[in-house]
């Protein structure tokens, strides 16, 4: 980040020279650069998770296939899900939180720029740490929800589960810190006049998500801590012979796991709520309803976790209660779908790539929602549990829903991020391949589930009538592969400088982020705008409203915009914190307390922790005054 003094002519933008080079990226505290780092790294993890999915589909192409071994198959479905949930969709959302929230609320950065960098580095190290397990032939193989007591040392000796549980603990840390940061940013750094209900919908949905993150991640952290104690020190939390109850893990996991579902989908809903109005040339229909529905989803999302556990046998009272709340949460979700439809209704819709993805989100997410509300009913769920019907449901929601929303966001915000338009034709080809691929892959899975095919089966018998649908799904998966490939080529071309210059406002949009240059200068707003409505930039352009764009705000600009200096302490703290977790690995997995191993672990962790403390103190001592 530049610390050079900058000067400005009367109402031109402040001239600025950003530092370039690797070191400037390692030490950056600029929310836009951190957003781009999240974007690129999560897309790479996404590619990895996609290749793992292809391995699964190729294995299932034929009955009784031996393309990959059963063990490798277990590793593939575990790592596919873990990667997609924690290393692809969540950080892809985080890319937009980082890049967009300060721009949308009219701020120059987040509340804690260095902590923001720390969140990113922890995420990156956590992701690399989990995936490094492949190098040690210890890839996690216990499924993404790692049910106890399969994850206990008795059934999972070796280090595969250790990589998984410690990696998730690191990633949880990263997400929670980002949560504190964004809640503070949204509450405290809004531009003058930007009241809560003038905030763009994406910021609103992100706001709800941050609360879900900071409230749900502590619960899985406790679940993971108990697992670490069981595996490292021989406690009995999930060990039935000594009275432990594996159900405890299920409760702690799904108390986190269901809010996590909304952590994955709400940002995409926010993006779609930004994209659809722009391409329909209308304001979002009933925006307050969309906001309150998001809030209600956040609240009720904490009261539905046991619908993942209907087959456990919690009793009719618990089952009825959770069936009711689960059906209830379909209401605010459906409200939003109607809002999006009525936003498009009567609008002058242009089918640019971002809008194609956004409309696809509405269409496919509705299908996923409809199959989802089916297993709100316990008797039906008893039939569907652990079948491919469930796989079909959550892939419609997460691929047809979350991923399409996020791709819409990439195509929509790319010009703002990088200053150049993505290729429209490649985007549309990618969209078409996605649309075909998703439906050909996941729709047949409904039938497979109804026919009784069990989720996570390595093989299925010949002559069971499952061949055709499985082959369709595998063919569809390759459509998705090529869809991703075309989009990645598009992104790569964009990064290499192809594409026409975007200008400040390529889509004629309504919100503040479009009123500044593309890509934005590192201080975002030379002059902070004063906001008078929920569509400030639209009002300025089309309704004769008060000026918010830099060129139109009266008065001379500042000579110099002071910004926080870059810092290398965040990455150092992240390295030390990551190493503290890594040091659990050697002594882990025995399932019994071993004094020598424990002593060794402490001897390793002690100096690392001291190193971390030193870095934290240096961080506190560092002068981060904007300059």
């Amino acid at each position: 980040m530049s610390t050079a003094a900058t000067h400005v002519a009367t109402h031109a933008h402040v001239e600025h020279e950003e530092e370039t080079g690797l070191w400037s990226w390692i030490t950056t505290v600029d929310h836009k650069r951190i957003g781009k780092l999240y974007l690129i790294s999560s897309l790479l993890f996404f590619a990895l998770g996609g290749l793992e999915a292809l391995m699964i589909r190729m294995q299932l192409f034929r009955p009784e296939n031996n393309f990959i071994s059963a063990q490798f198959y277990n590793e593939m479905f575990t790592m596919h899900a873990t990667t997609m949930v924690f290393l692809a969709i969540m950080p892809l959302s985080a890319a937009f939180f980082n890049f967009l929230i300060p721009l949308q609320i009219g701020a120059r950065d987040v509340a804690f720029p260095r902590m923001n960098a720390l969140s990113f580095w922890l995420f990156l190290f956590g992701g690399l740490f989990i995936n490094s397990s492949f190098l040690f032939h210890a890839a996690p193989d216990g499924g993404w929800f790692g049910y106890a007591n399969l994850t206990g040392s008795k059934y999972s000796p070796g280090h595969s589960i250790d990589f998984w549980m410690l990696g998730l603990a690191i990633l949880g840390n990263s997400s929670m810190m980002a949560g504190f940061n964004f809640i503070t940013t949204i509450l405290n750094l809004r531009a003058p006049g930007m009241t809560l209900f003038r905030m763009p919908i994406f910021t609103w949905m992100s706001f709800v998500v941050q609360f879900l993150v900071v409230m749900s991640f502590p619960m899985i952290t406790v679940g993971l801590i108990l697992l670490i104690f069981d595996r490292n020190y021989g406690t009995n939390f999930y060990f039935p012979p000594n009275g432990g109850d594996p159900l405890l893990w299920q409760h702690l996991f799904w108390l986190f796991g269901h809010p996590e579902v909304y952590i994955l989908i709400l940002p995409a809903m926010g993006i779609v709520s930004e994209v659809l109005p722009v391409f329909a040339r209308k304001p979002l229909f009933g925006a307050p309803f969309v906001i309150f529905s998001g809030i209600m989803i956040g609240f009720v999302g904490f009261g539905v976790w046991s619908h993942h556990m209907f087959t456990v046998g919690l009793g009719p009272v618990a089952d009825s209660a959770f069936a009711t709340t689960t059906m209830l949460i379909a209401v605010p979700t459906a409200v939003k779908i109607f809002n999006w439809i009525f936003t498009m209704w009567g609008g002058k819709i242009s089918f640019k790539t971002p809008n194609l993805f956004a409309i696809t989100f509405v269409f496919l997410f509705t299908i996923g929602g409809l199959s989802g509300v089916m297993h709100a009913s316990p008797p039906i769920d008893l039939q569907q549990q652990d079948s491919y019907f469930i796989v079909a449901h959550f892939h419609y929601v997460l691929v047809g829903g979350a991923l399409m929303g996020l791709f819409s966001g990439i195509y929509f915000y790319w010009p703002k991020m990088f200053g150049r338009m993505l290729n429209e034709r490649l985007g549309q080809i990618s969209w078409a391949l996605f649309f075909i691929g998703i439906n050909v892959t996941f729709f047949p899975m409904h039938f497979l589930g109804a026919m009784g095919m069990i989720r996570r089966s390595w093989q299925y018998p010949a002559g069971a009538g499952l061949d055709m649908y499985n082959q369709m799904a595998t063919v569809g998966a390759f459509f998705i592969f090529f869809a991703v490939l075309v989009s990645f080529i598009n992104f790569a071309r964009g990064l290499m400088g192809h594409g026409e210059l975007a200008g400040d406002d390529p889509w004629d949009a309504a919100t503040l982020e479009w009123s500044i240059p593309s890509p934005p200068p590192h201080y975002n707003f030379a002059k902070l705008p004063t906001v008078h409505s929920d569509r400030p930039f639209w009002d300025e352009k089309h309704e004769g409203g008060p000026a918010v764009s830099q060129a139109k705000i009266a008065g001379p600009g500042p000579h110099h915009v002071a910004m926080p200096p870059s810092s290398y302490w965040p990455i150092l703290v992240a390295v030390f914190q990551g190493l503290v977790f890594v040091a659990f690995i050697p002594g882990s997995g025995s399932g019994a307390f071993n004094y020598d191993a424990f002593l060794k672990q402490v001897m390793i962790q002690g100096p690392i922790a001291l190193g971390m403390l030193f870095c934290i103190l240096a961080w506190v001592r560092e002068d981060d005054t904007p300059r």
Partner: protein
Amino acid sequence: MTSHAVPAGAHADAGHEEFDEHAWTSLGLDHMKLAFWTFLGSDCFFFGSLIGTYMSYRGQSLVGPYPRDVFSVEVTSISTFVLLMSSLTMALAVLFAKTNRRSGTIGMLLATAALGASFVGFQMFEFSHFYHEGLTLQGNLFGSSFYVLTGFHGTHVAIGVLWLLIQTLFYGKRWIRGDEGNAVEVAGLYWHFVDIVWIVIFTFVYLMEYVE
């Protein structure tokens, strides 16, 4: 972490009063304090899960020792009193810091750290006593859930003691950037929170054993 990361520089646009972006926040609250409240909210869920685990395993141990076999509610009451008193000294430290009575602040911060450290000492004594009574981390569910719950609370207190000592140093050396009173207040928020969590733990883990 210091509190003032607000990008500074430009004034608001013309037609508005000039305002100092260093000090200005939308809610009028300090960033650090607001963020710390969200952290405390989050930590409620952390301890809530640990206490929930303890409660759901209460009375489920297959073998002894059981709580009543090892607990000495008198000793734990004393350590609870010590911790409660540390909240008093902490509150005084915040008061002195806000009114810029420097030696008082340093004295009260050190007193709080000392009381916190003696609470941790009580806990170490208690743990070793229980261990010699036969209650181990691995022996039964009570041991597992008791040691993990109270151990994590003790860790929170120990981190708090470390924080207070470092803060005393920083305060004495005038190394704290931004509002010093605010920095002490944030440490106070943490300290009172850890204290309140102990009240809940003391009630559910210890006192409940003597209700029936």
